[in-house]
């Protein structure tokens, strides 16, 4: 998606923004993305095990269960906002900054949000995994 955005926009505008603006753009992507992920995850938990629903009511039943959930659409809305925020950020900032920063920070934001809002049991093992993957994704995207 990110690469698609860059290709669509051509070379990013080489505008020198101050650090606060760059931080705000990246924060907007991270926060909207984490909100979308948390809402989507919460919607799927409230719907129940999709494999069970599919076994009972078939694929149409599973699709119906998902598309009739307002929380799912709220999640998709925030994910769409996150995508456009990413497009905007890529228009002003370099891919080599935006890609690693958003990929790794979104993972950390999701872990914190998962603990606070979804009440997931984020034990030391999950924190360690999130931290390792966060640094790893940063290095790969850099």
């Amino acid at each position: 998606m990110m690469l698609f955005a860059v290709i669509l926009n051509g070379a990013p505008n080489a505008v020198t923004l101050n650090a606060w603006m760059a931080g705000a753009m990246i924060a907007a992507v991270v926060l909207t993305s984490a909100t979308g992920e948390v809402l989507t995850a919460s919607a799927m938990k409230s719907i129940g095990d999709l494999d069970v629903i599919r076994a009972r009511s078939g694929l149409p039943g599973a699709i119906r269960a998902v598309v009739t959930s307002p929380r799912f659409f709220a999640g998709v809305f925030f994910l769409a906002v996150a995508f456009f925020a990413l497009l905007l950020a890529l228009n002003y900032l370099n891919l080599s900054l935006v890609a690693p920063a958003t990929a790794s920070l979104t993972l950390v934001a999701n872990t914190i949000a998962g603990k606070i809002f979804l009440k997931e049991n984020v034990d030391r093992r999950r924190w360690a995994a999130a931290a390792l993957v966060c640094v790893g994704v940063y290095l790969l995207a850099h």
Partner: protein
Amino acid sequence: MAQHRLLPRQYLILGLVAVCAPLGDSCLARGMTAMPSISLAHPYALLDTLIAAVFTPWIAAGIALLIGFFASYLTALSWADLTFVLPATAIGNVFVELLSKFWLHETISLERWVGVVLITLGVAFVAQGPALTERPAPAVEKAPLEEPVTIGGQPR
């Protein structure tokens, strides 16, 4: 407390999440690179080009893979925690690095190899734990009602 363990079928779904997302992105990137350059100054030409792009093999494959990713991602979230699914499926990035090394013969820098090792370690960490937060079954009898429910004027 019994740990919530996954079935082989559920590991397969997580594998699909991990593989479909990076491969879908790669297909889109490859397909879009082959397209003529697009200018935002001409909206109709842009629309025509984008519609034509959807029917090119790489982009069609990318879209199909991303639809597959979203379907399997939603399925995974219906039986596993978000804080499990996200780190566990990051192994897809490692697959793509290995593919680019051994299939496309690209050079992988030391920095990226360190990234591959860290992600693999992170996935190994999270995969050893439970996939779902165990929650106590809702105890209806124990839940005190804030106000007594009355039916026909009689406290229930």
